[in-house]
């Protein structure tokens, strides 16, 4: 990389830095703390970003359709015959993953695939936020 020798070169004057510091920054021989700090913050905040929650109040409205099957105690899936799972109080990340899999067609249940396809990512976050907030 081209460096600035002595006091030559116009960028030096515009930055107000000494030639030594200017070259350090240009060549990366001495990384400033700001980018390091930013990188560290980004890495530590990744788990928070992954678990970004939606709007529980909006979710409460959006689960209207879900209650048709998940809202009836003891309700059974007609075929194959098994109980429709309890989804209230389930963990947020799992609910997001399950609904996203249905949306993408990665889980097979026909009714849930149809539901998943009709949901936006925001809908999924809102619904999962509301469902995970429920208690028995």
């Amino acid at each position, binding site marked *: 990389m081209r460096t600035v020798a002595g006091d030559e070169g116009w960028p030096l004057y515009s930055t107000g830095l000494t030639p030594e510091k200017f070259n350090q920054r240009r060549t990366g021989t001495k990384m400033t703390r700001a980018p390091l700090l930013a990188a560290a913050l980004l890495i530590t905040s990744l788990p928070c970003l992954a678990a970004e929650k939606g709007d529980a109040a909006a979710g409460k409205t959006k689960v209207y359709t879900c*209650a048709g099957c998940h*809202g009836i105690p003891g309700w059974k899936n007609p075929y194959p015959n098994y*109980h429709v799972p309890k989804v209230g*109080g389930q963990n947020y*990340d799992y609910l997001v993953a399950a609904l996203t899999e249905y949306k993408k067609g990665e889980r097979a249940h026909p009714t849930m695939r149809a539901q998943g396809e009709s949901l936006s990512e925001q809908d999924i976050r809102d619904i999962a936020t509301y469902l*995970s907030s429920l208690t028995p």
Partner: protein
Amino acid sequence: MKRFTASLLITTLAACATPAFAKGDIEAGKAKSVPCQACHGADGNAADPQYPRLAGQYHDYLERALREYKTGERKNPIMAGFATTLSEEDIVNVSAYFASLPGSKLTDLHDKVQGD
């Protein structure tokens, strides 16, 4: 005859009132469930939100999920690894065990929808 009819009625009502009667062997399921606890929690209420809570879930839904993981119909590398080691009897027993656990945090959506 009246007595017989009454006892029949009581028996029928009692049978109907028993929720989702699990057929599996809960104790055998508990013994098989040790690996599950690492992710799903010792009490079946997974603390890590990426894993589902199993305590109090319907036993037949849990069976269904395990069979789907075993056949590969439901794709998850972690669960495929465990489910393929389970026999049909194990699946029924493990599902019965998690369904039977007390302290469930799961609920259906009865009375939990806007307007209810």
